[in-house]
């Protein structure tokens, strides 16, 4: 069974992003970029399925500029077998990425498409569901456990009230939540090995897909600042403040 894992290059989760003074976006100049943390979990899960003898090949794909090759090399170092870069400098929104993934799935014919439930830059939480819809595949979002057996994926999902388990007929799409696994660190020998693994660059322009953005960002602003309050000396002072000043209890 082949698994396709989609990964996104995003601002590192430790970076405190700043809004540009002209409100045209956030400042990405000289900012550390990394793999979206949820996608790292997706890669880890695919590699574990291969190590367990369930998957035969793990292919990783990213869509975006040439720098995404670094992100793909990280995925190869974790254990993916080969990589595809759908290359474009254009802005890609979730629907466009879903269309690219559909085209690649039709060519590669994986039984499972895995990716993070959301990217930590635009926080959209859409691409997996959209790809599933376009492919006509079933989906299991927010996965905290994945079991593959008898042509089915049994997936436990983190939902609002607790957990839910569903079974999908393969091929299917799974999006990962935080507690699916703990991704390994790529070791130096594996990072070296990853440099020699195949990485196929395919220009998006040649795919015949309409990737034009549908959403136009008019403005990006700082959120309203919450001013820090005061420190109270003890519990009695806290209770007095809550009763008399804030009047919330």
């Amino acid at each position, binding site marked *: 069974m082949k698994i396709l894992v989609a990964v996104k290059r995003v601002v590192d989760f430790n970076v405190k992003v700043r809004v540009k003074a002209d409100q045209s976006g956030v400042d990405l100049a000289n900012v550390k970029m990394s793999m979206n943390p949820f996608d790292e979990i997706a890669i880890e899960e695919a590699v574990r399925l291969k190590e367990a003898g369930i998957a035969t090949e793990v292919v990783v794909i990213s869509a975006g500029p040439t720098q995404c090759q670094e992100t793909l090399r990280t995925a190869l170092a974790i254990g993916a077998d080969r990589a595809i870069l759908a290359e474009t400098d254009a802005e890609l*929104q979730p629907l466009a990425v879903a269309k690219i993934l559909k085209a690649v799935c039709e060519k590669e014919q994986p039984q499972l498409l895995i990716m993070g439930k959301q990217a930590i830059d635009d926080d959209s939480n*859409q691409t997996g569901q959209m790809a599933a819809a376009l492919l006509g*595949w079933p989906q299991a979002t927010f996965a905290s456990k994945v079991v593959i057996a008898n042509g089915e994926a049994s997936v436990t999902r983190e939902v609002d009230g607790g957990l839910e388990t569903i079974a999908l007929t393969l091929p299917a799409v799974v999006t990962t939540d*935080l507690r699916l696994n703990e991704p390994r660190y790529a070791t130096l020998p594996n990072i070296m090995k990853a440099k020699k693994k195949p990485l196929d660059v395919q220009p998006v322009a040649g795919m015949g897909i309409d990737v034009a953005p549908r959403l136009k960002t008019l403005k990006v602003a700082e959120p309203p600042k919450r001013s820090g309050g005061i*420190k109270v000396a003890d519990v009695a002072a806290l209770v007095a403040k809550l009763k008399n000043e804030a009047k919330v209890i």
Partner: protein
Amino acid sequence: MTALVIAEHDNLSLKAATLNTVTAALACSSEVDVLVVGNAAEAVAKAAAQIAGVRKVILVEADFLADQMAEPVAEQIVALAVAYEHVLAPATAHGKNVMPRVAAKLDVAQLTDVIKVVAPDTFERPIYAGSAIATVQTADAKKIITVRTTGFDAAAATGGAGAVEKQDAQAGAGKSRFVSRELTKSDRPELTAAKIIVSGGRGLGSGENFKKVLEPLADKLNAAIGASRAAVDAGFVTNDYQVGQTGKIVAPQLYIAVGISGAIQHLAGMKDSKVIVAINKDPDAPIFEVADYGLVGDLFEAVPELVKAL
């Protein structure tokens, strides 16, 4: 044109998140219908018809819709969407699961976690864990939206007089199957609807302490209990307690953060609370930067003392 709100429910009762979504829908359009997709959900439809401002409720029932799987639910919405310019669902686990599927089937963009309707085609939504607010305009004729409920007041649950209209279900896809559900049973208020939330972090040290320290306080205040990601990852409580960027977004009247340091991902989920109290032994913890009232001290002493003082 009319807006359609997808009701959040469990076939038995209508969830409060639907009310905030109706308010968002009324900001997009003066006419709002509600869609209830489920099975044996007549009571839900009747409750939805009572919401102030709702024109009518469409009820689509079938046994294969009972568990509200994404694939068949999306099919029902897509079939009805032709008559609507805006389709809105609360940005719950269910809404986020289904709405992108609807949008892709309609070949339109989806707008996630909308916090403000600027114009019928222009919306505000947080990005980068709420570190920035983007104003986005869609070029698509249909707007498929998930609504961050803390951004909108709840519509009045009564006062409306909408009719309930039953419609036949579209055939189900059949490639996914519901197996089981383990929901946390609790007599406490629902996290996203609670007026007061007591939330615990890594500082509690163990699941046992989490219960022992926070439950008496929550009982006293009739509060819901939440947790930081660190507490959930450490196994103190289950995932449905998590407040933050990737967990639940809450905005209660009072949020008491106990032993939570205040990572930006956690603040993203609670910083719109009216009053924030932080109890933490580290005076430099970032949680104090957003707290209205900070108490530096040992939570194992401060919280029981607080319970006694209330």
